[in-house]
């Protein structure tokens, strides 16, 4: 490519990146964020109140106000990022990946003052009230890196070395680091996102069959309780009531919340399971509170919003201006979809319990900001969708 061609391309990109954002997608994101923050208020105030020393209204709303602030900043960031030509991410793919690996290494260094341990797992890095999970960065790094490399490999993806081996090596390293935290759900997500992008990127059918087969075999192995690893978790999954007083407590409390909701719910704010019965009620388990308060109707509507968001995400991927944009969109959409599915599946005891947050709903300022930022990237892809050809 001549310098002239490059200049021309940059000019086109600049113009294209000024295109309109995908309005349905923006509306869905804003709606979900708004509902999410409101539900967080309802889910969080009881514990915030009971566990504060002062027991004031300010204490009860502290979780909510903090999340609201992050949401507003996040929405601003989303629009800012959407205006940024997504092609620039291609150049950042490698540095981002190196950065992510560095963070993952940093978090597992023992006695690291920046690392934060909660519930026997060291998944957070942070200083003075602000913390984030390196795995959030790693997920995004995988999406960008995979999109950047797959998009140029084209049909070479069908080859084992280029299409599968290299990526498995990378995913292997990342998984290993994350399992050392340990962070099983994050590992599952990264592997899932990676696998989906490889699938869409064009690996050979044989590899697809092999991959799906291996996955199914693994699931069967787990359910059959042959392996000692995760056996107790599977047993709790199959009959949480038998462990209602110990390991199954969270699941049982979640089911009680969901079941109490019935068709129409007990009403916004009126849920009782958040009165210290349900652990993690404003984090991983927030959807149970949604079900209790808004009922099947409300929960199904929210699921529908997520469903539309995912479908619109894939629509953006299909209509993206180029392979890179398409793959970026596939990666980000897949991440949202998998996270939503796994979270709701865990809360409803559809799959064994593992800590996974619900996008836009679960408490966590930085996580919400990162999610909204990723939505911004998806929107930046949507801006460059070529309009219908005129004339």
């Amino acid at each position, binding site marked *: 490519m001549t310098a002239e061609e490059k200049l021309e391309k940059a000019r086109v990109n600049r113009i294209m990146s000024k295109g309109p954002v995908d309005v349905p997608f923006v509306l869905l994101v804003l709606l979900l964020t708004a509902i999410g923050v409101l539900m967080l208020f309802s889910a969080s105030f*009881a514990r915030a109140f009971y566990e504060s020393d002062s027991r004031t209204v300010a204490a009860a709303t502290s979780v909510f106000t903090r999340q609201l602030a992050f949401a507003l900043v996040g929405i601003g960031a989303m629009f800012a990022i959407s205006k940024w030509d997504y092609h620039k991410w291609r150049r950042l793919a490698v540095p981002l990946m190196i950065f992510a690996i560095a963070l993952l290494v940093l978090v597992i260094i023992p006695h690291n003052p920046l690392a934060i341990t909660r519930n026997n797992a060291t998944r957070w890095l942070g200083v003075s009230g602000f913390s984030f999970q390196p795995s959030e960065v790693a997920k995004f790094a995988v999406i960008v890196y995979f999109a950047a490399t797959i998009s140029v490999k084209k049909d070479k993806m069908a080859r084992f070395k280029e299409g599968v081996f290299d990526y498995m090596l990378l995913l292997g390293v990342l998984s290993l680091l994350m399992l050392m935290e340990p962070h099983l759900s994050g590992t599952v997500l990264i592997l899932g996102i990676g696998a989906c992008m490889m699938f869409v990127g064009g690996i050979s059918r044989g590899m697809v069959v092999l991959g799906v087969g291996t996955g199914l075999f693994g699931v069967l192995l787990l359910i059959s309780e042959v392996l000692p690893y995760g056996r107790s978790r599977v047993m709790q999954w199959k009959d949480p009531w038998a462990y209602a007083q110990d390991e199954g407590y969270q699941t049982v409390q979640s*089911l*009680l919340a969901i079941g109490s909701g019935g*068709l129409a719910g007990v009403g916004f704010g009126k849920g009782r399971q958040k009165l210290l019965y349900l652990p993690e009620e404003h984090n991983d388990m927030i959807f149970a509170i949604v*079900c209790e308060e808004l009922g099947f109707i409300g*929960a*199904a509507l929210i699921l529908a919003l997520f469903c539309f968001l995912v479908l619109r995400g*894939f629509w953006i991927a299909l209509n993206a201006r180029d392979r890179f944009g398409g793959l970026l969109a596939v990666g980000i959409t897949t991440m949202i979809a998998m996270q939503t599915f796994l979270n709701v599946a865990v809360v409803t005891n559809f799959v064994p319990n593992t800590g996974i947050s619900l996008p836009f709903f679960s408490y966590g300022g930085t996580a919400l900001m990162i999610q909204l930022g990723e939505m911004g990237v998806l929107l930046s892809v949507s801006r460059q969708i070529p309009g219908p050809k005129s004339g």
Partner: protein
Amino acid sequence: MANHRDRTETSIKRATQVLKRRTLILAAFLGVAAFVALAGRLYYLQIICHEELQERAVGQQTRSSTITASRGTIFSSDGETLAISASAETIFISPHEIEETEADKELIADTLARILDVDRDTIREKEDKVESYYQVVRPRVEKELADQVREFINENKIRGIYLVPDSKRYYPFGSLACQVVGFVRDDNVGAYGIEALYDEELQGTAGLVVTEKNARGEDVLYKYEQYYDAQDGDSLVLTVDTNIQHFLEQGLADAVKKFGVKNGAMGIVMNAKTGAVLAMVSLPDYDLNAPRTLYDEHLTAQLESAPEEERNSTLADLQRLQWRNKAVNDTYEPGSTFKIITLSIALEEGVISESSTFNCVGKTYVSGWEKPMWCSKHSGHGHQTLAEAVAHSCNPAFIQIGLDIGTEKFYDYVGDYGFLEATGIDLQGEQKGIFFDEKNFNSNVVSLASAAFGQTFTVTPVALVTAISAAVNGGYLHQPYIVEQVLDSEGAVVYQHDNTPVRQVISEETSERVCALLEGVVDGGTGKNAYVAGYRIGGKTGTADKTGTKTDANPQGDVVVSFVGIAPIDDPEIVLLVALDTPSRNTGYYVSGGNMAAPTAGTLMSQILPYLGIEPNYSGDELASADTNVPNCVGLSAAAAKERLAESGFACRTVGSAETVTDQTPVGGSIVPGNAEIILYLGAEKSREQCTVPNVVGKTAEQANRELTNAGLIMKVMGTSGGSSSSVYVMSQSIAKDQKVDAGTVVSVQLTDTSVTD
């Protein structure tokens, strides 16, 4: 170059196609299938499992404290309290909390054991069940002890010992009417008797306060509270009168002792006009406040002789035995008492009349049965009128009467008198007597022949008394009953028993004729030992073989001796049944209803009738010995005193020589038989020496009177008409021999005519 570009373009095109196709596949899985699955799962949990899960959730989210309803009181007809609930507290520990708060388990066990009188090690064992939140230490503790426990909790600031309000049932009369009243289980639910049958009425409805709580047990921000009022239980007023019940229990207990009765006794006093049960006794009995303890010595002996490993089951069997209300739960062959029914049927149907005559040679034959049917008097009663046949309780005569009635009519009347079904009395587990199948009964006369004198079929005591009441009250069959009224917690009557008779079985005229004939049984017949001076009593004795008890070791077999008394016979108020199951043959008394049940009934009548306010009406003979109030003569002149005593019909003698009476024996106001002699002291010192009571049991009436008078005592005669007969002896005396008593004390003697064989 172009070729290369073409190839690149095709590869790009193909890769893009793959990308789009596979994105669609991914969208189908992640965007559609995944959400459909989740929605299905939510539908299952929120719609299908909704109620089950909600119930569980509410269970943990709410704290409901019950407000116990106070159980209703059971009153006797004379207003006494037979059963009442008082508040108490149940003390329990939460071993889990004791463990969590690291409280001093030893201290708690020691202290609770001391205050509550519970085994210390048992408490320690309960404390070690650390998963448990609820272990009862002692149920239903009275306030005083509960206060001590509270004090201990407060002083030591212990979490894990709790007191919950409860109530405890008390039976102030102990064993009185125990099988009728019944008792409650540990959880205050009726277990036996009226307590069980009327449990719903007595229970009331527990109230409830439901408050919401968080997982720490704290009340929540916005208060959700629901209050359901407790509805106290209704109270019952029984037909049972504590005094009559007491007379009957005492009389039967005495009889059991005196006659060595092996299988207990039963008795019923029924209001002949309404079917109200005034008293119902079944021996052995027990204390309602501790129903699981065995009280009867026969029962405790049986338990002790049981092998170790069978102790528990034996104990349970024996407990059921003492809880059993024989008057309704058991059936027996009524024997001659049933002749009242046969008699009433025959009179109503006009097949016999007072002028009918019967000839008894001691046995009779019935077609279809080769063996003779014997009369109780094997030598035979000879020629007799109907009145005599009834008074003699002559079996051949009644077989003849039965045959005259005929099977079909007899069977119909047996049904009308209510013997073919349960009476429906409001007591638990009423049995139905076993009478013959109608077809079989009508096919030959053998069954009729034996049924006519009360053998080869069974009735419950209550059914017999009910039927006899109908036979003597003008013919009206009533449903027997125990509960007269149900009162709500405010005391308002919510139920009143309806006295409407079920049906009329015989006419009023026939009933009157039956009564007249029954009076003859007591007035010189087999029931003469039930005679009570001043009262007109009718009745019928019964000595019924217990079918199947004749063995080589027991050639005569076991019998149930009974007596049915009706008084006053000219206008029957009460029907009394006394039945003794298997009296001993070794006490010296001839085993028969007339010798054992009748005198028992006589004593009872002499207590019950005055209590019911029925005035005695003495005949000339009786009047001489009737109870009379001794006038006070102290301070009067000797002449005036003698005049006053003569007015009252008393004879007198004087001691001393002064002008005025300084003392007298018996003292003024005493009630003594009117033929007694009064001693007037004229200045002489009244003898302060005490008299020794002689033994007069077994003596004739004349001998007894002489010996008692000689000892300075006054004899009062009870029981049996026709006291001059040579076969009349003293059966018992009210004051035991060798006792020291004041001079002039009245000693009642129970006379019995030992010639009575039925």
